[in-house]
């Protein structure tokens, strides 16, 4: 081992109460030349106020077109340990539950063949093994996959699906987010590992409209749990909330967006027909209120961050879909969506941008979904619309 890199700027980030990533880097640097040079290279970035990483080249494991992000330093002479420093994306288990023996096994592999640095987790949800050399990739993949782990998605492919904690530890989940995520991931292994799409495609599954995995903002396909029946009320628990200091009129009744709740000091009433299932009252009075009746999911399509022409939120495509194994309906719908995207999408055009360019009608007709008022905030404002010859005399 060579001497530890000097990092006066980064050292300052070991001070203060919040856990320090610099301390983590130093722990890894004590055991790995790669991490020691990463520390040095990052100090250089702090000094120069700019990044010292180059675009990824094409690296990967045999038979896969993704799962490894190539990364090269632009100052390799100074920091040879990170001359190439590729990321391995490992598909996380649903809802990020682990057993410690599995985690230790991964640590052992990563200490031996990589930098010893990780992200738990990356933005899309994968376990990120941060930094290794090209020649170690095949060995790492063999070590991981022989123990039951596989790579996640990257590039113009299906990205690793992820989900909230769901029925595993949450009373609000209307769908089995863990099982749906596992089932979709298994179904679409080829689409994940061999990029063949115009651009990335993400699934995120949230059990309710609280949306703890930000599906509506970040997933091309958001699967969000909902229900159709009446909210069940436990009046005794309502009274207990009142007794414990909750101002039910101010915090529940007046904050209901559809004004469907009334409270006379004794009894809480909900006009269920007027409820839009936003989750406000249920999350604030979780002991007193719960969803009732038929459970399922709303399917929303198209969100993405600002690239290229501005961010979009996902829009409702299927207002209600039953979600039971083997989840044939969502899988078939997804294949139709991909077919249309494959046919018309331009390079680096997300599905939401294509829908905007080609129009909702084109999209809905192709995937075979009828128009429904739940799809819109309001009808069009302009008088310009198409008719087909079938619709005319």
């Amino acid at each position, binding site marked *: 081992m060579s001497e530890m890199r000097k990092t006066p700027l980064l050292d300052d980030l070991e001070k203060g109460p*919040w*856990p320090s*990533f610099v301390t*983590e880097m130093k*722990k*890894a640097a004590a055991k790995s030349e790669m991490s020691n040079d990463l520390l040095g290279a990052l100090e250089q970035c*702090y000094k*120069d*106020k*700019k*990044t*010292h*990483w*180059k*675009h990824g080249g094409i690296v990967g494991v045999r038979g*896969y077109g993704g799962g490894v992000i190539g990364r090269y330093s632009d100052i390799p002479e100074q920091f040879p340990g990170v001359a190439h*420093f590729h990321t391995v994306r490992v598909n996380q*288990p649903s809802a*990020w*539950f*682990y*057993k*410690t023996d599995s*985690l*230790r096994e991964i*640590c052992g592999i990563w200490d031996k063949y990589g930098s010893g*640095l990780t*992200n*738990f987790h*990356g*933005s899309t949800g994968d376990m990120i093994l*941060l930094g290794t050399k090209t020649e170690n990739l*095949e060995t790492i993949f*063999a*070590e991981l*996959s*022989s*123990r*039951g782990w*596989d790579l996640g998605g990257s590039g113009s492919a299906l990205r690793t699906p992820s989900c909230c904690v769901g*029925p*595993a530890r*949450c*009373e609000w989940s209307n769908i089995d987010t863990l099982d749906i995520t*596992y089932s979709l991931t298994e179904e679409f*292994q080829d689409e994940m*590992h061999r990029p063949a799409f115009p651009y990335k495609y993400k699934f995120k599954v949230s059990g309710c409209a609280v*949306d703890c*995995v*930000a599906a509506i*903002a970040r997933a091309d396909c958001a699967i969000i749990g909902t229900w159709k029946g009446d909210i069940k009320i436990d009046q005794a628990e309502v009274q207990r909330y009142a007794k414990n200091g909750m101002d039910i009129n101010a*915090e529940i009744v007046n904050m209901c967006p559809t004004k469907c709740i009334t409270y006379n000091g004794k009894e809480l009433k909900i006009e269920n027909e007027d409820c839009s299932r936003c*989750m406000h009252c249920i999350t604030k009075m*979780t*002991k007193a209120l719960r969803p009732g009746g038929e459970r399922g999911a709303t399917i929303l399509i198209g969100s993405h*961050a*600002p*690239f*290229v022409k*501005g961010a979009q939120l996902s829009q409702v495509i299927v207002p209600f879909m039953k979600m039971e194994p083997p989840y044939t309906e969502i899988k078939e719908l997804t294949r139709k969506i991909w077919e249309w995207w494959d046919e018309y999408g331009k390079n680096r055009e997300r599905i939401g941008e294509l829908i905007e360019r080609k129009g909702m009608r084109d999209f809905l007709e192709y995937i075979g979904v009828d128009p429904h008022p739940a799809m819109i905030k309001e009808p069009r404002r302009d008088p310009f619309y198409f008719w087909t010859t079938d619709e005319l005399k």
Partner: protein
Amino acid sequence: MSTPQRKTDIGPPHYKQFLPPVIQKNYGQWKYHEELSAGVMVHVSESGDEIYTVRVASPRLISTDFIREISDIADKYCDGYLRFTSRHNVEFLLSDKSKLEPLQKELKDKGFAIGGIGNRVSNLVHTQGWVHCHSAATDASGLVKVLMDEFYDYFTSKELPSRVRLAVACCTNMCGAVHCSDIALVGVHRKPPIPDHERIPNQCEIPSTIGSCPTGAISPDPAKKSLKINDEKCMYCGNCYSVCPALPIADPDNDGVAIVVGGKVGSLRNGPKFSKLVYPWLPNNPPRWPEVVNAVKGILEVYAKNARKHERVGEWVERIGWEKFFKLTGIPFTFQHIDDFTFARETWRTSAAFKW
């Protein structure tokens, strides 16, 4: 030692093997939960079974030593089960209530930050930054660290009107839900890329680079077999640089951090919202970015003082109006705040009613 036999397309391990027995038994049967403190909650099942969760912060960028340390703790108190949250926290899961106090004591003794539950600042969703990204206009891990050093008490104890979700993206690619967060930082460039005419012919595909520009600022330069940038049209988004490495855009003196506020993802009350620009640019001033920390602190404190219970940042601003937001926070209002991109028209005021 020989390399084991590789397998392909097996997908992740089945989640069920990682679920603690109390979860396997009560899967889908949870009745309610209670927040017991800033970092502890209990979920109670229809069966009466309980599961306790103790949440601690992680810096996201963690060493294998850290993973082994939390694994040892999980072995000692949680039969070897733990999970991570969507915001990079670690959750220790246990059904034996008597272990709750000793677990928290050990975590505190080891310097872990316990918290992040309820109406507080939770851990930050963030990106790679200078640690590992070619397009980063700022560092992400460093910004998270300096912000959370400042807001540490809002994670471990102090309450706010509602939950506040902070996020950092190191460039406008925004890997992370920065565009829908209560308060978020995004790394921005302010100068057009400079074409490297020697490298462009070999490294870049001309049509897809031209196509990557949202404002049509890139055109071919046939004489040089290269590209031209119309500086007046360029909005410095950096999308072209993602497609063509020979269009470097980084500029240490002009890159910096923008602050956006008022976004959320949940449908509660009034639906998901985008974050909106409030600081167009603050300097990259590592290692502690004092200008950025002060700016975020200013916004958070004005929100904490003025918002009503359960109001997220965006809901509060919408109730009081953006003109009042700028007045209360003292943030200067500039041309950069008035949208002139794709969805601009939806953001202009088309009513004669507003506040002085």
